[in-house]
C-alpha cells in the first residue's frame, strides 16, 4: 500500500470546500463571512507553521530543542485554560499553568518512560505529539473545572456562608462546589472514552492507519493514549480546583468572595 502525498493543488481543492460554508452564510444571512475567512486563513497558516517547525525540530532531535518546545506548548495550554469562564481571581493564570504543567508532564513521563519506553525519551516524533494530545484534553478539564468552581462559589455563596456560620470548616463549606467542579472537568474525557471507536475515530489512530499502520497496532496506541489523557485531565482538574479553593478560602475558615471578579 502506498502513502499518497498531497500537493498544494490537492489542498486547494479541499480548501475550496469552505465556499460551501460561505454560500450558506450568505444564503441564511448568518453574517459569518469574515469569521469564516479568518478561520480558514488561521487553519492554513497555523498548520503550515507547525509543520515546518516540527520538521525542523525532528531534524535536530536534541533535548535542548525538544524541551523548550514542550515548555512552550505547556505554557500556552495553561494560559488558554485560564482565559475562559465569566469569573476570575488574581492568580488564576498561575493556578491554571501549575495544574496543567504538573499533571501533563507527570503523565507524559509515565507514557514515555514506562509504557512506550522510547530512547532517548525526548525523541520528538513521540514526545511532542503525545504531550500535545495530553495537553489538549487536560486544558479542557482544567478550564471547565475552574469555570465551574467559580460559578458554584458565586451561586452557592449563601449556602457556603451558612455552613461556615454554623461552625463548618472551610473544607466542609467548599466540598459541594469542589465535587461539582471536579465532575464537570472530568465528564468530557469520560464521554470521549465511552464513544471512542463507535461514534468517533480518534485523529491519532486515523493518522496511523492513513500512514499505513495496521489498525490493530494503531488501536493499541490509541488505548494507551486514552488512558494517559484520562489520567492527566483528572489530575489537572483536581489540581486546578484545589488551587482555586486555596485562593478563595483562607486558613481562618473565611470565604474570600471579594477575590472573585467578573471578567472585563
Amino acid at each position, binding site marked *: 500500500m502506498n502513502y499518497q502525498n498531497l500537493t498544494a493543488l490537492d489542498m486547494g481543492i479541499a480548501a475550496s470546500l469552505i465556499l460551501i460554508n460561505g454560500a450558506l452564510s450568505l444564503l441564511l444571512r448568518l453574517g459569518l463571512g469574515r469569521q469564516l475567512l479568518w478561520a480558514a486563513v488561521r487553519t492554513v497558516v497555523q498548520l503550515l507553521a507547525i509543520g515546518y517547525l516540527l520538521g525542523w525540530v525532528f531534524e535536530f532531535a536534541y533535548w535542548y530543542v525538544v524541551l523548550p518546545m514542550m515548555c512552550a506548548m505547556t505554557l500556552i495550554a495553561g494560559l488558554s485554560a485560564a482565559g475562559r469562564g465569566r469569573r476570575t481571581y488574581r492568580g488564576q493564570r498561575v493556578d491554571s499553568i501549575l495544574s496543567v504543567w504538573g499533571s501533563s508532564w507527570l503523565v507524559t513521563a509515565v507514557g514515555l518512560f514506562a509504557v512506550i519506553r522510547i530512547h532517548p525519551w525526548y525523541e520528538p516524533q513521540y514526545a511532542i505529539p503525545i504531550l500535545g494530545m495530553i495537553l489538549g484534553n487536560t486544558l479542557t478539564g482544567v478550564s471547565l473545572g475552574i469555570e465551574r468552581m467559580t460559578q458554584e462559589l458565586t451561586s452557592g455563596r449563601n449556602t457556603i*456562608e*451558612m455552613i461556615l*456560620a454554623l461552625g463548618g*470548616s472551610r473544607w466542609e463549606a467548599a466540598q459541594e462546589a469542589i465535587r461539582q467542579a471536579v465532575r464537570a472537568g472530568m465528564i468530557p474525557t469520560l464521554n470521549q472514552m465511552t464513544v471512542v471507536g463507535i461514534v468517533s475515530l480518534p485523529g491519532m489512530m486515523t493518522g496511523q492507519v492513513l500512514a499505513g499502520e495496521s489498525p490493530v497496532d494503531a488501536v493499541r496506541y490509541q488505548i494507551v493514549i486514552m488512558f494517559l489523557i484520562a489520567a492527566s485531565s483528572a489530575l489537572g482538574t483536581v489540581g486546578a480546583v484545589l488551587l482555586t479553593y486555596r485562593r478563595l478560602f483562607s486558613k*481562618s*475558615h*473565611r470565604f474570600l468572595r471579594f477575590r472573585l471578579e467578573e471578567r472585563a
Partner: protein
Amino acid sequence: MSALIETRALTRVDERRQVALLEPTDFTLNSADRVSITGSSGSGKSVFLRALALLDAPTSGQILWNGQPVANADIPHYRSHISYLSQRPALLDGTVQDNLRFPFSLKTLRKRRFDLQAVTTLLGHAGKTADFLHKNAGDLSGGEAQVVALIRTLQLNPEVLLLDEPTAALDPTSSRDVEALIDAWFAGDNSRAFIWVSHDLDQAQRMSAIHLQMSAGVLSAVAQP
C-alpha cells in the same frame, strides 16, 4: 456579668475599593445583654456583625472571646457558639428535618446529637407542629424558611446570636414567630446575649435593652427619649 465578646479598635476597609466600612470600634457584649443596632442600609451594621462572626477578616483591631483572641483552628468552634444568622435563609435540598440534622454532620458538632424533642419544643414556639418536619424545604415560604434556619441555629444552644435583619423580608406573622423563638432562647439561660441588627425602630425598641446606631461606619449609643 462578664464580657463574652470584646472588640478593640476594630476596623474594616473594603478589600476591593479601599473604602472604610467600619471606623475603629470598641465594643463589649456582656452576658444577658440584648443589643440592637439600627441605621440606614450601607451604614456598616452588617459589616460589624459579620466581623464579630469572624466571617470577614478585620483590617485592623482585635476581637476577643472570653478575653482571648480566637486562633484560626478554633474559628469553627467559635462560630458554633457565637451564631450568625443572615437575612436570607439558606436551606439545603431535602426536608425540614434534613436541614435541622445538617449541623450535626459537621466536624465541630459531631459529638452532639440531634434532639427531636428539643426541636419539637422550638417548633411549638413558632406555632408549628411536628408534621412541619417532613415538609420539603423547597416548598417553604420565606418566613417558614427563616424559622427553620433559626431553629437550626437555636437547637445548638449558642451563647450569642448575631442576628442580621432576620425579619426584614418577612410577613408580620413570621416576624412574631422569629421574635418568640428568640425570646424563648434568651430566657432559657441567663448567660445568653444577642445583637439584633434591624432597620425597624419599633422592633429594636421592643426586643432590646441597649440601643445602638450605626452611621457611616461609626457605632454609637442612641440618645434615649
